[in-house]
């Protein structure tokens, strides 16, 4: 169930993960603070181009975008009606405004543009590589190692969880809206926590046996190639252009 997106090979895959993280971050921030439709639509187009360049199957891309858009759809039920402005249409007693619709549209575009590049990033880089790249980008060491341990043991604990749920099923358990169900789930969660804390003790012991004294190491090294630099400069230029476009609106 906890599956990463399929790894293929593409121009995006070969990009240095540090460059990718920096670009995705800057892109997300740029889109999040922009307001002008021209800028947002260009960003959306750019985002989808990147996702397609990562050779992400369109079906997977759309599948991943659906949950993101559920919250957006929820907002569409409110914003057109609650935003003050020029009336555009009406549903019964409710009046949708021109400004409200534009605002909701803006949010939808922003959200999808940012998510498209996020998905391209995740689909082209393994999560562990991202962790190593974050380490290189000066994210605190403690945080990166915490990330690694959490990711490592999610899989082990998830398997324990699946086995416990099977055992409940085999004994006729059918979840419903009742106390018995909630109590059983609470016991399941409690058992997971207890077993994890036991495991933590064993892992700590295993680390002691290998000389652990509080130091954690990361072995991966990245090197910037000319291809990375060119891509970085190119993308920065694109974003700068968008930024200028956004800024000129205000002056």
């Amino acid at each position, binding site marked *: 169930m906890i599956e990463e997106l399929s790894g293929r090979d593409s121009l995006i895959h070969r990009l240095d993960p540090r460059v990718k993280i920096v670009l995705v971050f800057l892109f997300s921030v740029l889109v999040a603070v922009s307001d002008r439709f021209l800028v947002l639509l260009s960003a959306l187009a750019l985002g989808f181009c990147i996702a397609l360049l990562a050779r992400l199957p369109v079906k997977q891309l759309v599948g991943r975008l659906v949950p993101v858009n559920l919250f957006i759809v929820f907002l569409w039920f409110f914003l057109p009606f609650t935003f003050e402005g020029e009336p555009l249409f009406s549903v019964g007693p409710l009046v949708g405004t021109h400004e409200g619709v534009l605002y909701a549209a803006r949010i939808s575009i922003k959200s999808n543009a940012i998510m498209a590049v996020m998905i391209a990033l995740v689909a082209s880089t393994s999560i562990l590589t991202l962790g190593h790249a974050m380490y290189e980008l000066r994210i605190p060491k403690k945080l990166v190692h915490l990330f690694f341990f959490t990711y490592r043991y999610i899989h082990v604990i998830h398997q324990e969880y699946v*086995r416990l749920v099977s055992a409940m099923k*085999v*004994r006729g358990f*059918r979840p419903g809206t009742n106390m018995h169900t909630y109590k059983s789930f609470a*016991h399941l969660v409690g058992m997971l926590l207890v077993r994890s804390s036991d495991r933590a003790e064993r892992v700590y012991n295993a680390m002691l046996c290998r000389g652990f004294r509080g130091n954690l190491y990361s072995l991966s090294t990245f090197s910037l190639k000319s291809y990375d630099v060119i891509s970085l400069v190119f993308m920065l230029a694109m974003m700068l252009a968008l930024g200028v476009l956004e800024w000129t609106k205000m002056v």
Partner: protein
Amino acid sequence: MDEDGLMIHLEDICFGYPGRPSVLDKLNLSFYGGERMGLMGSNGSGKTTLFHIIMGLLKPSFGRIEIMGRPVKEEKDFREVRKRIGLLFQDADDQLFSPTVLEDVAFGPLNLGKSQDEAKEIAVRALESLGLAGFEDRITHKLSGGEKRLVSLATVLAMEPDVLLLDEPTTGLDEATEERLVDILKGLDVSYILVSHDLDFLKEVTFGITCMSNGTIVRDDERIPHTHIHVHEHGRYAHEHGRKWPHDKG
């Protein structure tokens, strides 16, 4: 064909985990009421997978399953199956999740719609029948390996199943507990399929032994005794003067 009828009937079952070579390949199995079948097979031959398919925890990619004469396909059908067939998991730790033994054993009956009092009564009876009276308030997580195994068996028996599937019930048990299990199994009034690597144990508690290999069942109608040379744990009975320990003083 009533009580002793065809309880479990599998036809051409195929199964593989995603991204792996197939585990079960056109497996056929007929299991009748009153039988006590031993099942052997090397590690990874798919014995556990087979049990999970019978219980509907895994879905075969191909093939037909009939339980007690009725074809079963969907989750809904398997819910009925799980009332009649009990599965003892390979790892007892996976089976127990309630804080106390009594709550864990009563979990099954509660799911079958029994009242709290009835469920408790059934649980107490199941525990007693395995010689576990007095264990009701013990914390499951703190039981020893052997105790966990016996309590797991109690949780399954509390469902009052017609057929038991026992997945390596003796791994991790010491000899005393294993003997106790032999006595318990012999005294039980249910049919079962039992997976074990231990031939001596299988010989004691089953009527015949079946083997799995290459994803299918290889049926041996005759059992074949033959001799093996073994090194015994204690040097009490017979002696062969072999190699001395390098640093022995005696």
